[in-house]
């Protein structure tokens, strides 16, 4: 997003990126919907399960476990080039072309003015940036009870996608109990999604193939690689792949950027007038720590705690597989007990169909024969509620960069992440309220699953915004304090992390940071 802003402003930009792509599965998926594939295609095992059945995983639920064969490339090379040790923090990082955005759930949430101020962002600037980003990526949504937390003040949105029968029923029941829900601080509505329901340029509107976990064929879901592809058609943008940025050195007349070629293992050096880092919070943290000669090795981290709760909707059990189903969240439930759009917790509600029975059958304490019959019967009534909690700083939430001669970068990240007892208790109580709320709508929680700290894939706060200019902080303009021409355009500066999906705000911040970098020298 920052790159597009710079190009639109007449700048010349070189993007240094590893850029792992899926060159294997994307082309295998036919131009059909999920149910048609299931009923007719002999080679469906290749892209639904994987040529080496790589979709199968056992043991403790891990971050990224849901990735289908066509998305597994998001994790390729990460263990080698981004080593991380922790027994309390299990993040997901990516060296993919387009980054973690290639697996984004598309949820777009405007943060409130209060939240933006607490983060350290200028709310009027970000509001304008939200409109710019929405016009670039295409957002569909609805004006309803959830819209203060989703589309907010946006008016350039497309209509929402169709609701499936499970979520239509939930919404209908909510509308009858709306007053009681709102009184308790709960607001249910359609999420805003970076998903087209009307054609936009060359991108087609969503076709309800229910292959959202497998393919981006029609480009109806926004992915950052779409922007990179478009920029590469311009003469002012240069993309250099297979390069891991390791560190930078600010000289009098330029910034030297050191990279490691992931194919050859050789170092490569680039020079630029300015540097904009947007490697994701953990990636940027590594680069900044390496580039400092202060010996400082520890940075704070923010990460939304996340729990997911499989639920069963008895009214929907024993129904035939549904055409026009969608893998993205169809409803969002917000908990705003103070009714002031601060410290809001968010649940996304998903139906279950295209991820198949094999992913869930092992969770039942039954033999596979009886389990199949039971799960086949229940699956039409399954819903998944994913709850994100807001996040504050804590002393036991940090990253450190330690030397490691065996790693290609000669270091590895160590992470510690522990919630305090009061945070754990607050989150547990909040989850109970969500479970109770959903139960009153006829969807019953089966169990709570904590996939581990870091599994929200929402990270921020390693270089907090600060006006004091101390080291390892960002100025309000996104400049790395202590430098004159290095900017950080990801979530590293956030002082607080709302539970609402942060990607839309990250993109808005990237746009603003890019604009501000132009004003700076």
């Amino acid at each position, binding site marked *: 997003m920052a790159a597009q802003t710079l190009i639109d402003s007449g700048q010349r930009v070189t993007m240094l990126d590893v850029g792992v792509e899926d060159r294997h599965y994307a082309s295998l998926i036919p131009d059909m919907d999920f149910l048609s594939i*299931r*009923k007719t295609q002999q080679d469906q095992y290749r892209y639904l399960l994987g040529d080496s059945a790589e979709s199968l995983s056992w043991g403790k639920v891990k971050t990224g476990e849901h990735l289908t064969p066509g998305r597994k490339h998001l994790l390729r090379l990460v263990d080698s080039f981004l080593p991380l040790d922790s027994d309390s923090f299990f993040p997901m990082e990516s060296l993919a072309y387009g980054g973690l955005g290639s697996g984004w759930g598309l949820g777009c949430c405007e943060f409130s003015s209060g939240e933006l101020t607490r983060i350290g962002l200028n709310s009027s600037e970000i509001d304008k940036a939200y409109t710019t980003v929405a016009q670039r990526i295409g957002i569909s949504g609805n004006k309803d009870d959830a819209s203060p937390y989703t589309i907010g003040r946006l008016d350039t949105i497309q209509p929402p996608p169709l609701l499936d029968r499970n979520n239509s029923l939930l919404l209908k029941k909510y509308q009858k109990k709306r007053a009681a829900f709102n009184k308790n601080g709960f607001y249910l509505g359609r999420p805003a999604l970076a998903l087209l329901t009307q054609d936009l340029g060359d991108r087609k509107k969503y076709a309800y193939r229910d292959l959202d976990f497998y393919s981006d064929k029609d480009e109806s879901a926004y992915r950052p690689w779409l922007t990179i592809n478009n920029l590469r058609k311009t003469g002012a943008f240069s993309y250099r792949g297979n390069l891991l940025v390791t560190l930078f050195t600010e000289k009098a007349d330029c910034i030297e950027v050191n990279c490691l070629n992931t194919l050859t293992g050789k170092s490569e050096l680039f020079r630029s007038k300015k540097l904009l880092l947007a490697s994701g919070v953990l990636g940027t943290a590594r680069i900044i720590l390496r580039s400092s000669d202060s010996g400082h090795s520890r940075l704070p981290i923010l990460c939304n705690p996340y729990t997911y709760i499989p639920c069963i909707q008895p009214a929907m*059990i024993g*129904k035939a*597989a549904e055409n026009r189903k969608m893998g993205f969240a169809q409803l969002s439930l917000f908990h705003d007990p103070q009714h002031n759009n601060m410290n809001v917790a968010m649940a996304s509600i998903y139906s279950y169909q295209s991820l198949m029975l094999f992913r869930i059958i092992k969770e039942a*304490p*039954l033999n*596979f024969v009886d389990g199949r019959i*039971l799960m086949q*019967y229940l699956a039409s009534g399954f819903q998944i509620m994913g709850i994100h909690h807001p996040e504050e700083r804590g002393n036991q939430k940090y990253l450190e960069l330690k030397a490691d001669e065996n790693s290609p970068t000669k270091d590895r990240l160590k992470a510690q992440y522990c919630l305090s007892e009061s945070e754990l208790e607050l989150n547990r109580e909040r989850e109970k309220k969500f479970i109770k709320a959903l139960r009153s709508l006829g969807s019953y929680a089966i169990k709570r699953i904590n996939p581990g700290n870091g599994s929200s894939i929402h990270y921020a706060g390693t270089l907090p915004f600060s006006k004091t200019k101390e080291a390892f902080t960002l100025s309000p303009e996104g400049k790395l304090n202590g430098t004159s021409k290095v900017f950080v355009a990801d979530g590293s500066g956030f002082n607080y992390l709302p539970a609402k999906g942060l990607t839309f705000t990250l993109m808005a911040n990237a746009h603003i940071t890019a604009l501000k970098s132009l004003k700076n020298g």
Partner: protein
Amino acid sequence: MQDKSLQSEALFFARYLLNKKPNLRETELYEKTIRSRALVPHERDLKLLAFASANTWSIGFIDSGLALIHPGAEFRMRLHLMFAILETNPEYHLLFLTQERKPLYALRILLRLLRAGLMGITGCLLLKLIR
């Protein structure tokens, strides 16, 4: 693990799961995946696999018992693999995709659960004997 052993394993697992003989593609995928994982099964798991191979009537009981006391066992992982492979065979889509059911079907489900429970208890006892 010998290829022939994996082939017969694929066969008796598929027969247990769906009462179907796996086709060549399914057997090859099963073998290939087991080999590529390069796990060294525990002696206890090898014993179970050998017992099940010689006494295919026991697979359901072993599966049921392990589901209760050791769901992550190698035996279950292999069954799960064959399950996933069979699920992606379009010929069997009616056995996996959800279907419209009449309300009385819930009774069949209850009976299935009862059966599963009894098999689980029996399976646990059998596992003690095998081990």
